[in-house]
């Protein structure tokens, strides 16, 4: 069966520090991978998605970046965190279909607090 792992679960970082959140998927190949953020009082906002190694699409311009160095690994990074980067970050995967309903499976999330 497929599983998705995301870490760290909780992170407290000072403003201006770097960030690295990692996500891996097991039990499938060539998945679509996503990073979402849930900020306080807001819904789930799509940040990045990837349909293959090295292929990253950004949905929201900001100081975050994403990389996909391996088929089932997705990394969210920042060189300098802002206070507004605080939130609950969710990695997700879906089957790599060209059409049809796209059901996402989410990881457990990473709570980031920027102080």
């Amino acid at each position: 069966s497929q599983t998705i792992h995301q870490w760290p679960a909780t992170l407290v970082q000072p403003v201006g520090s770097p960030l690295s959140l990692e996500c891996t998927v097991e039990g499938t190949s060539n998945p679509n991978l996503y990073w979402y953020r849930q900020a306080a009082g807001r819904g789930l906002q799509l940040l990045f998605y990837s349909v293959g190694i090295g292929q990253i699409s950004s949905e929201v311009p900001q100081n975050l970046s994403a990389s996909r160095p391996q088929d089932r690994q997705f990394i969210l990074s920042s060189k300098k965190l802002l206070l507004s980067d605080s939130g609950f970050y969710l990695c997700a995967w879906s089957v790599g279909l060209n059409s049809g309903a796209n059901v996402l499976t989410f990881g457990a999330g990473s709570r980031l607090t920027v102080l």
Partner: protein
Amino acid sequence: DQQVKQNSPSLSVQEGRISILNCDYTNSMFDYFLWYKKYPAEGPTFLISISSIKDKNEDGRFTVFLNKSAKHLSLHIVPSQPGDSAVYFCAAGVSDSGAGSYQLTFGKGTKLSVIP
């Protein structure tokens, strides 16, 4: 501009009664819809979906209704149980090929509290 709206941030229901969570959308291109359930400090879990070619989909205690003309869908939970207490997100997508099919647009969520 919010394309998927959940106008009720919270809902309280007595155990055993029906819970009705509502969702409205504006993008007429959306042709499939999903509901996710989320507990605190956890990722959302998929609950039920519906294609625009249907107006109802049922899975146990959960039923989703779709009214395309009104661009409205609802999730019915009956009977409601205390374990159903969670935040429920409505999501919508477009199933054609291309970049659009990879994206789901989520509402802000409705927090359901089922009172024992």
